[in-house]
């Protein structure tokens, strides 16, 4: 890895969750590898990664369902590494919702408080408040099996939130919803988090979800955190080839570092003035986002290179072009279909074009 991931947020008080060289080995393979992470109180933090990257295992270790092989878990500054789940001040929203089918909605939501021996009047009031918050005020007497997927999801959320845990763990809670509902729930989840102010640790493989909801995102791969930062950080300034490829799409070109530029072919060399830490002749990669590349209206400060349109794909709001710079180097370019553009102004395969992008959009990965 090029740089140590910035897993420590600006310090203000005790972090909600701290992981110290947390490791999990399953049958000889290391699923989570010496993870260090601090999640600030009140943060909406996402663990983003492909399946099998260790994100769910990390979550299960924080919840207490899985014992770490080594390392420490602190919740609110308190070491809970060997505390059983029912004594941890964390609650989980499960991927399958895991609702109690033998109880009605109110029974489900009030379950945790009843375990704590809250008196009936307070319990009823808190359950009603929580049901209002998730907009299920009128469904309290329903059985979970009679609710829609979105409603079940809200019950699961309410059942966990009502306990006011130090941190709420969410294991791909939106994965089972259809696309439209998922978008609605993303916005709602975010606004609920703002309202209650509880730390959310959100596990997802959906980059769109992670980017749009989180204060910070950690990209996990192979049991380690590849990069951690704000959504803008991880999107605009990926620090590893994996991060650049996993979030959004990137044009990845490999080349050699030479005189402050990356030589990607015999006669194409992409300048990267800000890059440091590579020696002359080092093998490096260059990543450029398709939407940062211009096909027209190029300006003098841009890096410019000629190419040939190979294909065009119309996506409604955007058009995607594949542009060949050399016979074996093709870049994807995404262009907005702006109101002033007419169909005949778009490019066709075979057209000779000049493409370009601003130097700050060249990301060098080592």
């Amino acid at each position, binding site marked *: 890895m090029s740089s140590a991931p910035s897993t420590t947020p600006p310090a203000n008080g005790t972090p909600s969750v701290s992981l110290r060289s947390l490791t999990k080995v399953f049958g000889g393979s290391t699923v989570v590898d010496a993870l260090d992470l601090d999640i600030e109180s009140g943060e909406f933090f996402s663990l983003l990664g492909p399946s099998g990257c260790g994100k769910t295992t990390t979550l299960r270790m924080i919840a207490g369902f899985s014992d770490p092989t080594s390392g420490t878990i602190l919740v609110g500054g308190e070491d809970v590494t060997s505390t*059983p789940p*029912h004594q941890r001040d*964390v*609650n989980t929203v*499960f991927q399958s919702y895991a609702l109690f089918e*033998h109880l009605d909605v109110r029974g489900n939501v009030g*379950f945790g408080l009843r375990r704590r021996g809250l008196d009936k009047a307070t319990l009823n009031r808190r359950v009603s408040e929580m049901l209002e918050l998730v907009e299920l005020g009128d469904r309290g007497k329903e059985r979970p099996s009679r609710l829609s997927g979105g409603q079940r999801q809200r019950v699961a959320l309410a*059942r966990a939130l009502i306990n006011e845990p130090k941190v709420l763990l969410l294991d791909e809670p939106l994965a089972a919803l259809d696309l439209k509902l998922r978008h609605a729930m993303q916005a709602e989840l975010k606004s609920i988090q703002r309202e209650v102010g509880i730390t959310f640790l959100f596990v997802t493989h959906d980059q769109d979800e992670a980017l749009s909801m989180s204060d910070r995102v950690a990209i996990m791969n192979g049991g380690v955190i590849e990069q951690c930062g704000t959504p803008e950080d991880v999107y605009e300034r990926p620090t590893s080839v994996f991060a650049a490829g996993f979030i959004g799409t990137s044009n990845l070109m490999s080349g050699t570092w030479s005189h402050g530029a990356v030589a990607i072919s015999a006669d194409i060399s992409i300048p990267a003035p800000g890059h440091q830490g590579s020696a002359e002749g080092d093998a490096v990669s260059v990543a450029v986002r398709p939407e940062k590349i211009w096909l027209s209206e190029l300006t003098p400060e841009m890096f410019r290179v000629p190419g040939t349109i190979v294909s065009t794909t119309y996506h409604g709001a955007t058009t995607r072009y594949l542009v060949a710079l050399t016979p074996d180097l093709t870049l994807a370019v995404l262009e907005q279909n702006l109101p002033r553009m007419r169909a005949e102004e778009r490019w066709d395969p075979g057209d000779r074009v000049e493409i370009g992008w601003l130097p700050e959009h060249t990301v060098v990965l080592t």
Partner: protein
Amino acid sequence: MGQRKLERKPVFAVVVTVLFFAWLYLPILAVALFSFNDKKSLSTFSGFSLRWYDDLIHNSALLDSLVASLEIASVATVGSLVLGTMLALGLERVRSRKGRVIGAVTLLPLVTPEIVTGVAALLLFTGVGLKLSMTTVILAEVTFSIAYVTVIVRGRLAGISIEVEEAARDLGCTPFQAMRLVTLPTLVPALVGAGLLVFALVFDDFVLAFFTTGVDPQPLPVRVYSSIRFGVSPAINAIGTLMLLGSALLIVAALAVPRWIGRGTSSLDLITGGQK
């Protein structure tokens, strides 16, 4: 469930179905009918009478056997429910090859000819010097029924995500409380279904009862069999009719009660494959 519409009337299928049910139920209806016959004849119905029911009430041997069979079935149901559920919960947690082997061995009683089980039980009981009585019948029936309970409960467990139990622990339950407050209540439909099935199987089980019963009181099927050797009394028709009525009521209850208490799905759906 399946709402496929057929384009033309399936005449053949309807005829076969009617014949099938006639073949299945007409003999049973005959038994019920002749239990009200005022003569001893089993071929001509000469008039309505309750004399065989009156006979039955005064036949203490038959009544004793009925009570004995009800006792055997009740105790065996409870016993096999407890043991079978424990076995199912245990097997659910042993997801290794060992667990699959144990699971397969559990199913053996379902395919072992009952006469083999019966002879084996008899040999065992006499071998260890256990006097044949209602206790030995119950022991044999419990052994035999555990497999049914385990199969049904495991079927239901497979449909419950392990996350449900984790959710309970997440919300403040110890593992034992999670079992008591969440897992077992969720299993209630399966337990009721398995209980009904085992009760029905044990209540009229002949083979095991025949091999393992003592002299007095004999389980009802054994008693009926031995009394038939001296000629069929319509009193047996009467007891048969009462049993038919009893099991019909039981099935109706099993279907209706879960709906009344708002559970939505019936325990019998697990056996019949209806609903979810």
